[in-house]
C-alpha cells in the first residue's frame, strides 16, 4: 500500500514538473541519438537495427552503429511500444521514449526498497529508501521525462542486479545467481557503466574472503553469476570479447579462479581438519593469488590483454585525461566533482550516509559488507567524476534510509509511556510512521525515554525530511527539468521568456538545405543535428574517432586558407557555430574553443598551437588585444562576422566575455552567412564552392566587393612564364 504510494510519488513527480514548463520533448544531447536509434529500430526491425550502418553521422566514415551502441534502452522502448500496440493502445514512439525514464525511476524505487529490505529487518528503511531514490536530485537528473538516456534504465538495473546478488549470496542459490547474471547481461546491454558491477561484485567477494567469510554460498553465487554473466555480456556485439581481453574485466576473472582454488582447499580442509594445515592453505592461496596477479601483469605487458583504457586511468589520476586525452577531459561530466555538488545532489542524505554505513558496520553480515564496499567504492568514483555521482546515489539513499529508519524506530517506540502523543507526530510523518511505529526496536535507549525528548527528535527529523522534499522539488524544477535545447529566462517584469534558438536553427536546416547537406559543427551538437535537423554530421557525441574530431577542431581553429581544403575534402556544406556573445550564453563555442585547439594540437602539434591563442601575457581574449591566430581562426571569424552591425560604430560588445570588440569586424571569403537565429545563438554558414573562374577565394571576394585587381604589368621581380 505505502510502497505503492512511494512508487506513485516518484513516478508522478517528475513528468509533472517537466510538463509544467515545456512540451513533451527530448532533452540534452545523447537522448537525441537514442531517440533517433529507437525510431530506426521501430521502423526497420531488430535485425536491421543490429546491422545498422549509419551513413548520416561521421561523414564520410559512417558509423557501424548497430555494433557500437548499447542497445538495451532502444530495445526496451521498442518492446514497450510493440507491446502497447499489441494491446491496441495507440502510442507514439516519442511518448514512449519521453516517459521511459520516469517509468523506470519507479522501478528503481522498488528495487531500492527490495535491496534495503535485505539489509535491515525494519520495513520502514525500505520505504524510506524507495522514497529517497524517487526524489534524490542526483538520480532525478536522469529520470525526468525526456531524459531518454542509457542511465535511465541502467540505474534500475544496477540496483536490481545488486539486489539479486545479495539474494543469491544470502541463499546460496544458483537460480538467484542466474537471475543476477541475466540482469547483469541486461545491464551490459544498456550502459557502459556495467564495469562498475563487474568490479564491485568481485571486490565484495574478495573482501569477504579476506575477512575469512568464505562460504560455499559465496562460491555458488559468485561462480554462477560469473559463468553466466560473462557469457551473457559477450552476446552484446559492442562488448564482444572484451570480458576476456581487457584489464577492467580481469578482477572478476581472477576472483573466479581464486574462488575455485578456495573451494578446493575448503573441500580438503573439511575432509582433513588440521590447524597447521590451515595456515598452509592460506599461504598457498596467497601465493596463488600473487601468481595470478603476476600472470595478469605479464599478459597485459605482452599484449594478450588490453591495458586499461584512458577513461579508467582518468579515474585514478584526475590530471591524466587533461594531459593525454583532452577529448575525455573536455566533457563537463568527466570533470572531478566539486564539493557543493554533493550537497546539491544529495542534500541531507549526504550526512545521513555515514551514519547508515556505520550502522552497517554494527551488524556486518555479508550484505552489510557489500554496502560498506559499495559506499567506499562509489564515494571515491563520485569524487573523481561528476557523472559517477549517479552510481553513488543508490547507496547513499539506502544508507540514509537505514539511518533514518533506525532513528525513527528508536524514537517512535510504542514502549514509551504515552503512545498517543507519538501518534500525533506520526500524523506528520505520514505512512512511514504508521508502519514503523508498530515495530519496537530491541536496542536499549538510555536517557531519552521522555516523550518530550522523543517528540523533539522526531519532529526535527520530520522537518528535515520536509526540507529535503522541498530542496528536491526546487532542484528538480530549476536545474534538471529544462531540456537545454530550450532556454528559459526571466524578463525584467518577471515573466518567463523562452529562448528557442536551437530549434529554430535546426528547423531552418531541415527546411532549407538539401537532404544530404553535410553540417560541420563541434561534436556537442552532432546528435541534435542528426535528431532534430536530420542532416548528416561530421562528428557527434559518440566520440569514437579522435582524429576525426581533431580534424574538425583543426578546421575551426585554423585560418580560412587552411580550413577550406579540409572542408572541401570532407564535403562540408554548412558550418554551424554556437555564439553566446549577444545573449550572454555561457555554453557557446568560443568558450569551448580551447578544447578544440587542444584536441587538434594533440594530432597536429606543428600546425595548431594552443599557446598562439593566448596573448603574451597569457590571457585568452577576444577583443582588440586578441592574438592574430585567434582573430584569423575560422571560429572567431564565424562567431563575430557582421556582429559589429548590431551596434553603433565602435560599440560592439561581447556580453558573455564582457569584451569590447575591434571596430572592424572579421571578413569571410570562403564562407557566406546562411542563417543566424533570433538571439544569434546559432549561426550557420555555407561553404562556398570553388571559384568558377579559378581564382582564390580572397581575391574573388575582393572582386565582389569592387576592388580592382592591381595592375600586374608593372610588378617587380622575375616574370612568371607560362611553360606549356
Amino acid at each position, binding site marked *: 500500500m505505502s510502497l505503492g504510494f512511494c512508487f506513485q510519488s516518484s513516478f508522478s513527480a517528475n513528468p509533472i514538473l517537466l510538463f509544467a514548463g515545456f512540451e513533451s520533448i527530448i532533452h540534452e544531447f545523447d537522448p537525441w541519438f537514442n531517440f533517433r536509434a529507437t525510431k530506426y529500430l521501430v521502423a526497420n526491425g531488430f535485425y536491421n537495427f543490429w546491422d545498422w550502418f549509419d551513413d548520416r553521422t561521421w561523414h564520410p566514415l559512417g558509423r557501424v552503429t548497430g555494433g557500437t551502441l548499447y542497445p538495451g534502452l532502444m530495445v526496451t522502448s521498442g518492446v514497450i511500444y510493440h507491446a502497447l500496440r499489441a494491446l491496441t493502445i495507440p502510442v507514439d514512439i516519442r511518448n514512449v521514449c519521453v516517459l521511459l525514464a520516469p517509468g523506470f525511476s519507479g522501478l528503481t524505487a522498488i528495487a531500492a526498497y527490495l535491496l534495503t529490505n535485505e539489509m535491515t529487518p525494519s520495513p520502514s528503511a525500505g520505504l524510506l529508501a524507495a522514497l529517497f531514490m524517487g526524489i534524490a536530485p542526483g538520480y532525478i537528473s536522469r529520470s525526468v521525462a525526456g531524459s531518454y538516456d542509457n542511465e535511465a534504465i541502467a540505474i534500475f538495473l544496477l540496483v536490481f542486479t545488486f539486489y539479486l546478488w545479495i539474494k543469491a549470496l544470502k541463499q546460496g542459490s544458483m537460480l538467484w545467481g542466474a537471475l543476477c547474471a541475466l540482469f547483469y547481461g541486461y545491464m551490459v546491454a544498456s550502459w557502459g557503466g556495467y564495469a562498475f558491477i563487474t568490479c564491485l561484485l568481485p571486490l565484495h567477494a574478495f573482501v569477504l574472503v579476506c575477512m575469512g567469510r568464505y562460504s560455499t554460498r559465496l562460491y555458488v553465487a559468485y561462480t554462477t553469476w560469473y559463468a*553466466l554473466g560473462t557469457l551473457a555480456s559477450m552476446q552484446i556485439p559492442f562488448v564482444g570479447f572484451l570480458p576476456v581481453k581487457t584489464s577492467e574485466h580481469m578482477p572478476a576473472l581472477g576472483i573466479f579462479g581464486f574462488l575455485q582454488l578456495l573451494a578446493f582447499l575448503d573441500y580438503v580442509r573439511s575432509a582433513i581438519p588440521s590447524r597447521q594445515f590451515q595456515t598452509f592453505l592460506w599461504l598457498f592461496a596467497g601465493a596463488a593469488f600473487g601468481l595470478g596477479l603476476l600472470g595478469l601483469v605479464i599478459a597485459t605487458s605482452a599484449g594478450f590483454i588490453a591495458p586499461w583504457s584512458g577513461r579508467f586511468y582518468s579515474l585514478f589520476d584526475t590530471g591524466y585525461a587533461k594531459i593525454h586525452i583532452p577529448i575525455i577531459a573536455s566533457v563537463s561530466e568527466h570533470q572531478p566533482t566539486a564539493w557543493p555538488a554533493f550537497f546539491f545532489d544529495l542534500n541531507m542524505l549526504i550526512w545521513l550516509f555515514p551514519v547508515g554505513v556505520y550502522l552497517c558496520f554494527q551488524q556486518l553480515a555479508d550484505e552489510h559488507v557489500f554496502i560498506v564496499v559499495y559506499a567506499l567504492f562509489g564515494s571515491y568514483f563520485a569524487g573523481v567524476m561528476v557523472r559517477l555521482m549517479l552510481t553513488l546515489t543508490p547507496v547513499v539513499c539506502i544508507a540514509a534510509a537505514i539511518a533514518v529508519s533506525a532513528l525513527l524506530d528508536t524514537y517512535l517506540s510504542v514502549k514509551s509511556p504515552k503512545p498517543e502523543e507519538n501518534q500525533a507526530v506520526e500524523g506528520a510523518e505520514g505512512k512511514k510512521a504508521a508502519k514503523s511505529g508498530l515495530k519496537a526496536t530491541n536496542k536499549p535507549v538510555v536517557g531519552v525515554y521522555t516523550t518530550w525528548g522523543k517528540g523533539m527528535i522526531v519532529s526535527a527529523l520530520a522537518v528535515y525530511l520536509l526540507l529535503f522534499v522541498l530542496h528536491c522539488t526546487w532542484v528538480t524544477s530549476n536545474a534538471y527539468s529544462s531540456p537545454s535545447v530550450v532556454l528559459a529566462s526571466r524578463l525584467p517584469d518577471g515573466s518567463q521568456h523562452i529562448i528557442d534558438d536551437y530549434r529554430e536553427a535546426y528547423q531552418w536546416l531541415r527546411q532549407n538545405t538539401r537532404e544530404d547537406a553535410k553540417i560541420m559543427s563541434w561534436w556537442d551538437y552532432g546528435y541534435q543535428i542528426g535528431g532534430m535537423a536530420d542532416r548528416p554530421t561530421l562528428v557527434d557525441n559518440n566520440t569514437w574517432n579522435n582524429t576525426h574530431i581533431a580534424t574538425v577542431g583543426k578546421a575551426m581553429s585554423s585560418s580560412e586558407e587552411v580550413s577550406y581544403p579540409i572542408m572541401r575534402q570532407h564535403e562540408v556544406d554548412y558550418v554551424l557555430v554556437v555564439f553566446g556573445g549577444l545573449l550572454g550564453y555561457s555554453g557557446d563555442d568560443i568558450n569551448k574553443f580551447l578544447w578544440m585547439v587542444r584536441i587538434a594540437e594533440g594530432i597536429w602539434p606543428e600546425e595548431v598551437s594552443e599557446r598562439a591563442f593566448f596573448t603574451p601575457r597569457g590571457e585568452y581574449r577576444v577583443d582588440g588585444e586578441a592574438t592574430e591566430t585567434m582573430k584569423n581562426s575560422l571560429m572567431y571569424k564565424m562567431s563575430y562576422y557582421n556582429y559589429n552591425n548590431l551596434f553603433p560604430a565602435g560599440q560592439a560588445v561581447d556580453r558573455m566575455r564582457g569584451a569590447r570588440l575591434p571596430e572592424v569586424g572579421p571578413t569571410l571569403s570562403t564562407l557566406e552567412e546562411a542563417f543566424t537565429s533570433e538571439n544569434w545563438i546559432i549561426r550557420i554558414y555555407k561553404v562556398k564552392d570553388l571559384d568558377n573562374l579559378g581564382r582564390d577565394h580572397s581575391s574573388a571576394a575582393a572582386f565582389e566587393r569592387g576592388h580592382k585587381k592591381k595592375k600586374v604589368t608593372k610588378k617587380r621581380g622575375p616574370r612568371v612564364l607560362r611553360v606549356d
Partner: protein
Amino acid sequence: MAPKQRNAAAQTPPPSSTAPPTRAPAWTPSPPTTTPKPSLSKPTTTTTTGAGGGVQTWDKIINNVLSHYLDTTPQRTKLLDAFMVFLVAVGALQFVYCVLAGNYPFNAFLSGFAATVGQFVLTASLRIQTTEANKGDFPCVSPERAFADYVVCSLILHFFCVNFIN
C-alpha cells in the same frame, strides 16, 4: 585462462589422482592423524621430505583415500564427481588444442571452453548444495530445488554458448 584451468583440475582430487602430486604429500599423511603435526608447520620442507620418504606408503595412502571416498560418498555424488572429471577432461583437451593449434575462430573457442568451465562450476555448485555436510549453509535450497536450479542454469548456459558459437 591457465590458472582457471589448473584450478578446475584441482577441484576434483577425490575421485581421481588429478591433483598435483606435489601437493598430495602435504595432506595425504593427515587422514590417519587428525591431530596437528608440528613437523608440518613448514609446508615447503615437508613437501620434499614427504615425497621422498613416503614412496612405499604411497599406494597405501591412495588406497586409503579411495576406500575412504568410496565408503563415505553417496552414489549420486559419485555420479557428480564422475561428470566433473569428464568435464575437466573435455576442458583440458580443448585448452591443449587451443594452445597447440591456435584460437582462430575465437568465439568458437570461447564458447566451447566457457561451456565446459561453466558446466563444471554449475556442477560443482550442485555438488556443494547436495552434500550432506553443507546443508546448514543452504537453508532455503533443498536438493530437489538445487537440481531444478541446476537444470535452469545449464539451459541458460547452453543457450548462450550455442548462440555465441554462431
